[in-house]
C-alpha cells in the first residue's frame, strides 16, 4: 500500500527518490519560478495552503474523519499572529507561537465536543464552529477590524542575537523561512503518522468498530488527531498572516474550509504529499486562469470535478498507482 511508504515504515528507494525530487524542487524555487513566469510570493502561498491541507489530511486521509470547518483554525492562527504583532510585540516567532496556540487550543477544546459525532454530523458541527469564529471576527470591529480585516501589522525581521534575518523586506528570504517552518512541520507530521499512534489512526480509518474491539480508545485518538491537525492548520494560518501582512475574516469562512478540502481531494487524500500537489494546482489555477478570464472559477470547478470523477484517489494517488507502488 502506498500509505506504508509515505508514513515512513521501511521506505523504499522510490520513496527516497520522491522525497528528493520534492525537496530539490522546493529548495530551488527562487531560481526556476521566475523563468516560468511565476513570482516568489506565490510559492509562499502554495506552501501555506499545502501545509494547511496536509494538516487537514491527517484527519481526513489518515483518520477518516471529515471536517468542514478547518478554516476556523487557519483563520484563528492568522488572527493570533496578526493581533500579537499589532498589540503585543513586533516579534515574528512570538506571533507564530501565539497564533498556533490560539488555533490549536481552540481546536483541542472544541474537539472534545465533537469526537462522539461521526460522518455528516461531525462535518456539520465543524462548519458551525467555523462560522461562529467567522462572525466573531466579523462583528468585533474594534479589536479584529471587522469585515475589512486586521491591518496595521508587518512581519518583523528575525533577530538571532548575532545576526538579523530580514524576512520583512526580502521576499526570497521570507520564502525560505516559510519553507523551513513547512519542512519542520511536515517532518513532525510524518513522524507522528509513522508512530504507533499514527498506526492506530489508520486502524480507526479502516474499521472503527474493529479498532474499538481491539481495545483502542477510539474517541480519544480521534480527539488527539483532530487537535494535532488543528495545531498544524493554525501554524499554516500564522504563515498566511505573515505572507499577506493582513488577516481577514474570509480566512475563517466556510469557503476557505471548502478550499482546503478541495486542495486535499485534488492532490490525493490517501497520500502524504498529495495535498502539496493539490495546493500547487489550486493556487496556480487561481492565479493564472483568473488573469485570463473572469470565469476562472469555472475552470477550478471543472478540474475538481474531473479529478473526483476520473482520479478519485487524487493526482498523487494516481501517479503512485500508475507506477505500481
Amino acid at each position, binding site marked *: 500500500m502506498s500509505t506504508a511508504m509515505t508514513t515512513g515504515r521501511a521506505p523504499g528507494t522510490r520513496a527516497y527518490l520522491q522525497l528528493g525530487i520534492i525537496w530539490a524542487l522546493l529548495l530551488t524555487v527562487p531560481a526556476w519560478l*521566475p523563468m516560468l*513566469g*511565476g*513570482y*516568489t*510570493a*506565490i510559492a509562499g*502561498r502554495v506552501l501555506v495552503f499545502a501545509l494547511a491541507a496536509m494538516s487537514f489530511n491527517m484527519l481526513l486521509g489518515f483518520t477518516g474523519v471529515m471536517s468542514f470547518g478547518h478554516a476556523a483554525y487557519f483563520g484563528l492562527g492568522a488572527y493570533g499572529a496578526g493581533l500579537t504583532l499589532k498589540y503585543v510585540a513586533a516579534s515574528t516567532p512570538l506571533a507564530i507561537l501565539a497564533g498556533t496556540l490560539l488555533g490549536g487550543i481552540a481546536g483541542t477544546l472544541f474537539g472534545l465536543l465533537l469526537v462522539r459525532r461521526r460522518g455528516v454530523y461531525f462535518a456539520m458541527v465543524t462548519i458551525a464552529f467555523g462560522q461562529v469564529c467567522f462572525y466573531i471576527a*466579523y*462583528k468585533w*470591529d474594534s479589536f479584529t*477590524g*471587522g*469585515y*475589512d*480585516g486586521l*491591518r*496595521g501589522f*508587518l512581519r518583523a525581521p528575525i533577530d538571532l542575537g548575532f545576526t538579523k534575518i530580514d524576512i520583512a523586506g526580502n*521576499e526570497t528570504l521570507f520564502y525560505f523561512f516559510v519553507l523551513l517552518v513547512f519542512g519542520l512541520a511536515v517532518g513532525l507530521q510524518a513522524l507522528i503518522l509513522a508512530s504507533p499512534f499514527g498506526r492506530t489512526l489508520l486502524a480507526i480509518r479502516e474499521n472503527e468498530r474493529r479498532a474499538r474491539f481491539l481495545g483502542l480508545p477510539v474517541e480519544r485518538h480521534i480527539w488527539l488527531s483532530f487537535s494535532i491537525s488543528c495545531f498544524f492548520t493554525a501554524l499554516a494560518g500564522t504563515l*498566511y498572516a505573515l505572507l*499577506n*501582512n*493582513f488577516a*481577514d475574516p*474570509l*480566512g475563517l469562512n466556510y469557503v476557505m474550509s471548502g478550499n482546503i478540502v478541495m486542495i486535499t481531494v485534488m492532490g490525493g487524500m490517501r497520500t502524504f504529499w498529495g495535498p502539496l500537489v493539490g495546493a500547487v494546482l489550486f493556487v496556480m489555477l*487561481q*492565479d493564472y486562469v*483568473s*488573469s*485570463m*478570464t*473572469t*470565469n*476562472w*472559477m*469555472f*475552470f477550478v470547478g*471543472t478540474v475538481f470535478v*474531473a479529478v473526483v*470523477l*476520473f482520479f478519485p484517489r487524487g493526482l498523487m494517488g494516481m501517479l503512485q498507482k500508475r507506477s505500481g507502488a
Partner: protein
Amino acid sequence: MTDRIRLTTRRRTFLAATAAVGGLQLSSPFIIKARGETPVKIGFIDPITGSLSALAVSEVESAKWTVAQMNKKGGILGRPVELLIEDSANDTGTGVQKAHKLIERDKVDMIMGDVNSGIAYAIMGVTSDKKVFHIVPGGHTDPITGKDCKWNTFRTCNTTAMDAAAVTGELVKRFGKKWFFITPDYAYGQTLQANFVKNLTALGGTWQGDMLPIANTDFSATLIKAKAFKPDVLLNNMGGAAQINCMKQFVQFGMNKEMALGGALFEIESIRSVPKEAQTGWWTMEWYWNQPNVPHVKEFVDAISPAIGGRKPTARHWMAYVSLHAARLAAEKAKSLDAVKMAHALAGLELPPEVALMPGKIQYRAGDHQLMSDIFVGQVHPPGPGGPDDLFTIEATVPGEKAAGPAEATGCKISWPS
C-alpha cells in the same frame, strides 16, 4: 471500477468540450497591447467576480476604453500604455496576492484598485511598502484618505463623510429630522452611518437603525421595526445586491407611501437592476452623464458609449477615466514614472475640464490626497424621456471641499519616504 469503463467515452467528449470552452475564454482580449517602445504598465485590480462585480465591470470597461484612447494620443510620456487587469474576486487575500503578482512579476509602474474598500486598504499596504504609485478609483471607506492615508495613495471617489454631508441637509430640509438607518455592518457602513448621525444630530434630529450583514437578503424584520418607528426618512446604506433586495422589499411592504427614502449612494448599476417602483428616493451621485452646462461631458459620453454597449457611462466609468488620466497628468508633470515624483506632482494638481467633467475646478488635494469632486444630490426616478439611463435628476450640486471639510480634520498625516 466497472464505472470507469462506462465513463471513458463520456470523458473524451467531456474533455473536448472543456478544451473548446476554455479556448473560447482565452481568445477574448484581456490585456490591451500597444505598439512599440517599452510600455507603461498599469495594474488594475477589481472584484470582477463576486457581489460587487457590476461596479467593477463598469470600471474595467472604462479603463480599457480610456487606455485605448490614450494610446491613440501618444500614451503616457510618449510611451504606449499597457493595462493589466486582475480579478480580486472580492477576497482580500486574493487581492493582496494579485498586487504582489503585478508588482513583482509584471513590474507594473502603478496600481489602481479596488472597488471593495477592504481590499483597497489591504493593497495600500503592499503598494506603500513597495513604493508603487497607487490610485483608488472607487473604494469609499474614509481612512484610505483619513487616518491611514499614505503618501503614494490617491482616491478618486468620494469619502463616505462627503456623501453623507452632501445629502443630509437636503433630506432634512425637505422631509424632516426623524430618521431610520439600514446599514451594512462593516467599515464602509459604520463610517457612513456615523457621518450621517453626526450631521443629523447637529441639525437636531433623532434616529434609530439596524446594522445588518453585508450580504443580507431578508430585510423583513428590520423593515417592520422601521415601520413602527414611523421615521420621516429611511436611509438605505446597503450596497450592491443587498441594497437592491432591500429596495424591492421596501416597495413590497408599501412603505414607499409612508416615508421618504434616501441614502448616500444608489449607483446607476444598481438602479438599473431594481423594478420601476424601487427606482426612487433621494441620493447622491458622484458623477452623472447628463450635465448639459458642463463642457466636454457630452463629448465623453458620446465617445465612450459605443464601447460600453450603447449605454450611458456611470460614475464608475468616470472614476476609472479620471484615475487613469490623473496618472498620466502626474507622470507628465513629473516627467517621470518615479512614484515619489508622481505623487508630489499630482498632489494639488488641478484637473483640466476635459478630464474632470465636472462644473467645479477639482483636484486631489495635497492634505489627504482625496479628489475634491462636486457631489450631485437629487432624485432617482424610473427611466425618463432621455432614454433607459435617464434615471436621475440633479437638484443640487455640493462642492467637494464644502462636504469634505478641512483636510486636517480627516486625521490624515502624510509622511513621505526619505
